[in-house]
Each structure stands twice: as C-alpha cells, then as structure tokens.
C-alpha cells in the first residue's frame, strides 16, 4: 500500500528495509549473504528501479490520488498473517548448535563441491536474462 505520494518514497523505504534485513542476516550468522544482499539488491537492483521510474516520466505530481481501501484485500492480507502467526506462536525454536567456521568458507565449500552444476546453470540463466533484456529494448533503427 502506498502511504507515500511519490513512488520514489516507496523505493527509498525498500532500501531501508533491505538494510535492516541485512543486519538481521548478520545476526543469524550469514555474513556473506548479508554482504551480497547489500551489494546486489541495494547496489544494483534499486538503481535499476530508479532508472525505470525516472524513464517512465511518472514523478510529475498527481494530486488526485487516493490510497485504495478494499475490504477483501485486507481480509486476504490478515488471513496470511494470522495463519502464519498461528503456526509460529506456540513453537519454540531454540538454537543449541555451534557454528564451525565462517559463513564464506561453508558456503563456498558446499557450492563448489555439491552444487557446481547448479552454479553453472545459474550463470547460464543470468546470461540468458541479459540477452533477453537487450533483445526486448532494442529499437529498430529508423531510416533517416
């Protein structure tokens, strides 16, 4: 829901949330992933969003915008949160294990020993995404 008039404000709140979540991940002993979150999401994806919003010429003021208030949507949302909290509230998840080694070592060992194939496939996926994007936004050159 947009409580903000401008969509840039929403984007900035997203950045805030990403930072908070990064801190959260650090406290869960996933330092490398927190670092990569900051780098990738805040560093690249939010920049892309910014460029997209700017290029769609949408930041001129629109004063006649009202937030949408719809009962059924609220119900669905509260449905989700209530189901999940119903599951979580009675459970205790204590952590009693020791961590052997830092996050980067563990990750890299697992990734490059067991999941080497998926690693390559993921890189293929990224490559294909790049090619698709380039094809999509390619304009036919006009004859002058």
């Amino acid at each position, binding site marked *: 829901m947009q409580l903000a008039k401008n969509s840039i404000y929403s984007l900035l709140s997203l950045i805030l949330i990403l930072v908070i979540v990064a801190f959260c991940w650090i406290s869960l002993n*996933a330092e490398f992933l927190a670092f990569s979150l900051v780098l*990738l999401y805040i560093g690249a994806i939010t920049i892309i969003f910014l460029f997209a919003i700017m290029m769609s010429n949408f930041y001129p003021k629109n004063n006649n915008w009202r937030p949408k208030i719809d009962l059924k949507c609220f119900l669905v949302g509260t449905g989700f949160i209530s189901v999940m909290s119903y599951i979580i509230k009675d459970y205790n998840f204590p952590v009693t294990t020791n961590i052997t080694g830092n996050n980067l070592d563990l990750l890299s060992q697992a990734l490059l020993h067991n999941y080497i194939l998926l690693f390559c496939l993921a890189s293929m996926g990224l490559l294909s995404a790049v090619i698709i994007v380039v094809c999509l936004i390619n304009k036919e050159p006009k004859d002058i």
Partner: protein
Amino acid sequence: MNLSIYLMFSACMFSGGILGVLLNNRNLILLLIYIELILLAANTNFIIFSKLWNDINGQIFVLFILTISAAEIAVALAIIFKLFHTNKTININDLSTLRQ
C-alpha cells in the same frame, strides 16, 4: 536464543508484501518492488531455518534466489519499458486490454 521472533519478522514482511500487491493502484513498477519484498521474506525464512538445523543448504538456496530474482527483475523491467512505449501509461487501472 529463540528464533520465533525472526520468523514473526519474516511473516510480517511477507504479508506486508501481499497487501502491497493487492492494494496497489499506482503503477506496475511498484508491483515489482512489492514482489521483491515477498522474495526477501522468503529468503529470510531460509536463513532462519538453516541456522536452526545447522544446515548450509538453506543459504545455498538463498544465493540462487538472489541470482534468479535479479534476472527476473531485469526482464520484467524490460517488458514494462516496452509496454510504456506502446501505451504511454503504466497505471494499472488503464491497462485492461487483456479483455476486449
């Protein structure tokens, strides 16, 4: 230490993202932002459970989700870009050509 609070936090982020998707009447890019929020909540969940069970596979999966979501956003933005050029608007209410 109790991990329920982290799970609650992830649940709130998830339902916040759902509500945003439903109550969105600005534009499509905001839709994508909320989808990112949902994915973030799912990632957090994976991290929590990998810490709970001392299993590194959860974090591997988080890595892959990060990768794929980045690719997906790029492609989605490219499509929206094209849409904007044909329709000159990205307001959700005006995009109703799915039905004549």
